[in-house]
């Protein structure tokens, strides 16, 4: 009879599985050197388990030792040999053996790049370099807009050039991780991710400043800050995870949320816990913006004095009530 069984042997902590073809029965597995399959696992007995074929062709598995026992599927194997129907899984100590037949279908081959075809562009190095240029132009533009002491363009460009190193360095580090995990550098993709992170970071800061001025409130600004930071971070982290693995989009987003949000929540809790009871300086709202776009109306002097006074009275009374209940 042709080879009827394949064993997929996976030892804890050994990475890739090994495969054995079973050509004759009985087939004995254990740590001893007289076995058909010798397992270098010290939680496995010298003679641990035996695969047998009945006269009528049925496969059975027989426990030879009860030191650490054997599991067939989710059940513990007893003294009576049990019927084995491939595919099945056996657990011997730290070793997991899947019993397969050659006709078990395998999953279709995955594309090594986990990006849909339409976005394949982001993996190209020229695209990444274009983004890097865009980032640089943004930096230079901000520098020119904010410069107090007028400088020639050449000086500004030279001053800003070292900032190109940040995304490049990030891409090298993530690329190296990718090399370890996937055996590929994928520098184009990594540089794209790094550049997008930096560009979105800049834009988020700009947006936050405007929003903070718009609402004239430190509380709203900090809530928005957390929401935006969480979204942006999760998105980028999911993308990076996907670039490091063969996860689907959904799985990578879920993994990113599962890792990032508890951490963010922890930071949130910490900021609440560490909030001092007493601050010696007032919580001023210091944001100013050249575009005077805001939610609050401009009050007349009388209305301003009246509302400020009533707000202060109210706030101080509220705090007094709170501190007296504590």
């Amino acid at each position, binding site marked *: 009879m042709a080879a009827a069984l394949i064993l997929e042997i996976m030892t804890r902590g050994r990475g890739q599985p090994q495969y054995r073809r079973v050509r004759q029965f009985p087939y004995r597995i254990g740590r001893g050197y007289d076995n058909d399959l010798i397992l270098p696992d010290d939680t496995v007995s010298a003679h641990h388990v035996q695969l047998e074929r009945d006269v009528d062709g049925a496969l059975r598995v027989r426990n030879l030792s009860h030191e650490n026992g054997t599991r067939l599927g989710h059940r513990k194997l007893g003294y009576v040999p049990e019927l084995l129907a491939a595919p099945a899984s056996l657990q011997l100590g730290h070793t997991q053996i899947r019993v397969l037949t050659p006709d078990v279908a395998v999953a279709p081959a995955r594309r090594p790049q986990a990006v849909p075809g339409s976005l394949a562009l982001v993996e190209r190095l020229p695209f990444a370099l274009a983004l890097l240029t865009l980032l640089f132009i943004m930096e230079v533009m901000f520098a020119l*807009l*904010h*410069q*107090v*002491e*007028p400088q020639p363009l050449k000086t500004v460009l030279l001053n800003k050039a070292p900032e190109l190193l940040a995304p490049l360095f990030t891409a090298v580090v993530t690329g190296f991780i990718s090399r370890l995990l996937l055996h590929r550098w994928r520098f184009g993709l990594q540089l794209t991710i790094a550049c997008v992170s930096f560009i979105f970071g800049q834009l988020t800061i700009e947006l936050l400043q405007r929003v903070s001025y718009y609402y*004239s*409130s430190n509380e709203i600004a900090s809530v928005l800050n957390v929401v935006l930071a969480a979204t942006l971070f999760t998105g980028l982290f999911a993308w990076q995870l996907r670039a490091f693995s063969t996860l689907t989009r959904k799985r990578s987003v879920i993994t990113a949320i599962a890792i990032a949000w508890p951490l963010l929540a922890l930071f949130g809790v910490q900021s609440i816990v560490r909030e001092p*009871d*007493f*601050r*010696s*300086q*007032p*919580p*001023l*709202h*210091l*944001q*100013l*913006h*050249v575009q*005077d776009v*805001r939610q*609050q*109306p*401009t*009050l*007349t*002097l009388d209305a*301003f*004095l009246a*509302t*400020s*006074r009533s*707000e*202060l*009275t109210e*706030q*101080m009374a509220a*705090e*007094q009530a709170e*501190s007296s209940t504590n």
Partner: protein
Amino acid sequence: MRGITSRLLPLAVRSLIVCCAFLATVGNADELAQQLYAAHKDAVYRIEVISPGTDKKSSLGTGFVIAREDLLASNFHVVANAVHEPERYRLEWESVSGERGPLSVVAVDVIHDLALLKADKPLGRPHVSTTLPQKGTALYAMGHPLGLDLAIVPGSANGLLEKALYDKIHFSGNINPGMSGGPALDAQGRVVGINVATAGEAVGFLVPAHFLDALVQRASEREFAVADDLQKRITEQLTANQDQLMADFFAKPWPTQQVGQFTVPGEISHRLDCWGETEPATEKKPYLEIATNCSGQDDVYLSERQRAGSVAYQYFWLESDRLSPRAFYREFQQRHNSFFQSDADETDVGNFACSVKFVEVSGQSFKANVCARPYKRYAGLTDFMVLMAMTGHDRQALLFTLDLSSVTLDNGMKLLQQFLENFQWQPR
């Protein structure tokens, strides 16, 4: 050892003439000082604030017999700890000969930093007070400098300070911490003032004796009974003081000054001191900065951490014709901040409450942070601060801050209103 170091700026003017006049009468002065010391040494005492845990002194000053044989006058700041935390601190006197005894507080005047203390036995002949003599009159300050033995320090009276919210005599002589609460005597041995503060070498300050007379008068109406409601009285004094300050400020129409394109209130009281500085635009710094500030040069001592009765306001103008609006606003925002000068902690005050509003002042819109925090021991009083920034101009900016300590919210808002009503935009 303690004694407040006044926040007064060093007064740089030194009078050589006074110095030479001293040389001429040196023999005379020597003898006089010896006589005064001999006559008064038994009526001037070291005052120690004892912390019961260690039974050691935690701070000290000087006191002298006044009005009655068992009454000592001193500074409030010498005994402040015992007033605020009578369960933690007690007071003791110690004579030149080393005798000791307990003291209790009869009355205080926080505004002028005075305290009246009672001993359990007669301590000597009471001093008599007198009015402020002419400038140049020789005075002799007695006390325990740095807690050393009783010393007598010659100097001279130089009139009342002009730039002070709370009247003080300028004494040209060395007053050191530990001498606080001691008497400054004239040649006849009468008390002209009470040593209270120093501002560096040979610049000292005395509380005029008439404030002590008034305090003695008030205490005599209660037959010098030991007070058990001092905090309440301090509240009354602080409240009355800030009402008085406001009344002073509102008494006269305010002079104006020009800050950039705004006309704003200038020196609203002659007791305030104003400073200013203009930095024109240069090649490296393409914006014009004008800063002026006015402030009370002294304040009221409440505790080691807390001062009351301070007043300060400042204007800052920023203008540029070359900066991009974004760059200009970056510079503007960097300067848009204000810190409240105080070491008060949560036992003294509550947290600041702030209100952020936009207001139109003389046709220009301002972003205004108005903040206040309540005093915990002195009901009704607050620390009050305002930070306002002009908005809506690309290359011109005005900042205005107003800081007041120990005012009622009403008075703070009233003063703010008066300020803003006197703002006037000058179109070019």
